């Protein structure tokens, strides 16, 4: 949860390739891709289905390992960490927001948001304070004790955002976070994420097809066939 130096990139990929074996066929999801994402940005990765967006996010999120190349996240070469260390690294530094919300169904909204703080061993009083504040920030203080199945899609995604942000990570990754929401709810969620990103100075990286989301982006990385096609900065 240490803030990165203002200038150094929060994500750096150098000549990264990722291949999968699909039966006898070798599928190259990423091909010699290099990019840097500076901190405190609202970045978007766009591309057609199968272009490698999700694979890129998985590598940045340290839930997958490259076949070739170097992945540095928060100035840490992930290849140097063992499995438990990578899990701890994710617990401390990376928040995830999933297309299908992926809340733990047996935990209430409050408990879902509190869960990442338990993983980093935060004291109970501080946990309570942060969880309550985060639920208030996403407008769900009144629904704190509800189970996920008692929440609407938009409310679930707000809980997921609160869960991703509550530990104040350096990096939040979101894979199609508005894909399962209607356009009005999607817009509200984008506005919320933009607001909390501005407040927390966390780097957000999205994989999306959503033009609404793209319109809010500070940086856009367009990829095709596993290679970086274009890198645009807003206003550039």
């Amino acid at each position, binding site marked *: 949860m240490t803030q990165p130096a203002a200038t150094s990139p929060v994500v750096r990929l150098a000549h990264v390739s990722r291949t999968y074996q699909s039966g006898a066929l070798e599928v190259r999801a990423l091909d010699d891709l290099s990019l840097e994402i500076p901190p405190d940005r609202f970045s978007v990765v766009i591309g057609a289905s199968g272009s490698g967006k999700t694979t890129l996010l998985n590598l940045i999120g340290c839930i997958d390992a490259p076949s070739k190349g170097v992945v540095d996240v928060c100035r840490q070469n992930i290849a140097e960490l063992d*499995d438990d260390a990578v899990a701890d690294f994710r617990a401390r530094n990376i928040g995830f927001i999933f297309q299908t919300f992926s809340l733990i169904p047996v935990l209430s909204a409050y408990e879902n948001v509190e869960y990442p703080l338990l993983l980093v061993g935060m004291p109970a009083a501080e946990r309570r304070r942060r969880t309550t504040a985060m639920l208030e920030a996403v407008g769900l203080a009144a629904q704190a004790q509800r189970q996920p199945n008692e929440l609407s899609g938009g409310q679930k995604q707000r809980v997921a955002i609160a869960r991703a942000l509550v530990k104040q990570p350096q990096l939040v990754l979101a894979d199609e976070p508005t894909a399962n929401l209607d356009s009005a709810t999607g817009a509200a969620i984008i506005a919320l994420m933009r607001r909390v990103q501005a407040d927390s100075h966390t780097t957000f990286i999205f994989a999306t097809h959503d033009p609404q989301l793209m319109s809010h982006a500070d940086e856009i990385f367009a990829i095709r066939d596993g290679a970086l096609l274009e890198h645009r900065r807003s206003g550039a």
Partner: protein
Amino acid sequence: MIGVLVKIAWRNIVRNRRRSLMTASAVAAGALAMLLFLGYTTYIFLGMETGNVQHLGHLRVFRAGYFLYGAGNPTAYGIDGYREVMREIGDDPVLKPMIRVLTPAQSLMGIAANYRSDNAASRTFFGEGIIPSDRARMLGWDQYHTGIFHPLDPGMSDADESSGLVGTGLARILNLCAPLKLPDCPPAPAAAPAEEHRGPVNADIAELAGRDAPQAEQAPEGAQIDLLAATVGGAPNVVSLHVASTQPQGAKELDDAYVLMHLGLAQQLVYGREEHKVTAIVLQLRDSRYMSAARARLNALFRERHLGLEVRDFGELVPFYGQVIRLFSSIFLFIALVMGMIVLFAVVNTMTMNVMERINEIGTSRAMGVRRSRIRAQFLIEGTFIGLIGTVVGAALAIGIATLVNRSGITWIPPGNAIPIPLHLDVLGRPLRAASICVGLVLVATAAALLPANRAARLSVVDALRHI
């Protein structure tokens, strides 16, 4: 952190309550079957121990060699100066607080005959001479509160050396059914040729009885038998026994040959006018747990005094006891294995389904930073909970059923017994064993969860998140 794992595990059990209930039911059925069988075997074991201790005592002191060879000629293995030996045992500061009853006993064999009947008959007998008041005290031993009390020996008293008991079978063989008014005991049909053949033998016994046992003439007519045995010196000796009543024995061979008499009469028959000895000094202890300590002390005492005596416990004297224990233990082991397998497969099946249904949730948790070991722990905790619930329910049912059975007053005649005794399921009679069953079942359930839990822990995060 463990708190949230426990919370997630418990809530998933509640969430899948029907599946969890079915699996816990399998565990409960296992616990119920094993605990009830344990209760039954405990009852059998403690009942057999109680019966043996009541009749034989915990330990018996014999002259060295008696245990291996004495059955052929008990009279040759009499303990010299047995009263002095008993005094030493009884006064020993180590043994004294352990001993409940210390009493002598004389085993003997010979021929029992009833020549007073029109249908005279004789039969080899196996006899035991005891002190009736000591035996009455021994029959009151019930350390485990089994409620098993064998009837005292009616008609026998310390003051009356001439009275004794016989097995029901021996009474029937010796034509004592009518004089003793025994039910279900028809008189034997007349056997004329055999009568003629046995006539001289009976006459000899009658003659000897008339010479050596003057008290026979004063005993009540019709329930009188004569006992013939060889004395230590090899001479034949006869005494008359007033059969006060009969006592059925568990095994027919014993029932057809058993005679219980006063020690004095047995000694008179075996030793005549020579020094009276006994074949055994019986020790009934206050608590069976003293047995090894008492035995060790006795052996030390005999070594110190160069007495040439040996000590045997009731388990050695009654091999059937050990055989029954081994039989029931092996049946118990078999049942435990079957139940363990059922529990194992039920929990593996349920936990595998739980893992399959929650692959995406596992992926999410792993992405958030939950270590593989914690994913594994979460599913192990679920298995443990299911095992715990099933075991607690099974144990409660077992205790409830056992209480009902114990209060119902059902009686039965166990193998080797002749008298009905109350059926009792002593589920908590061996608490350590009962606890082992419960802990074992919970461990089996936990171990059964290990395979699916490992599978969950090994899942690739990317594959798990992709799973729908």
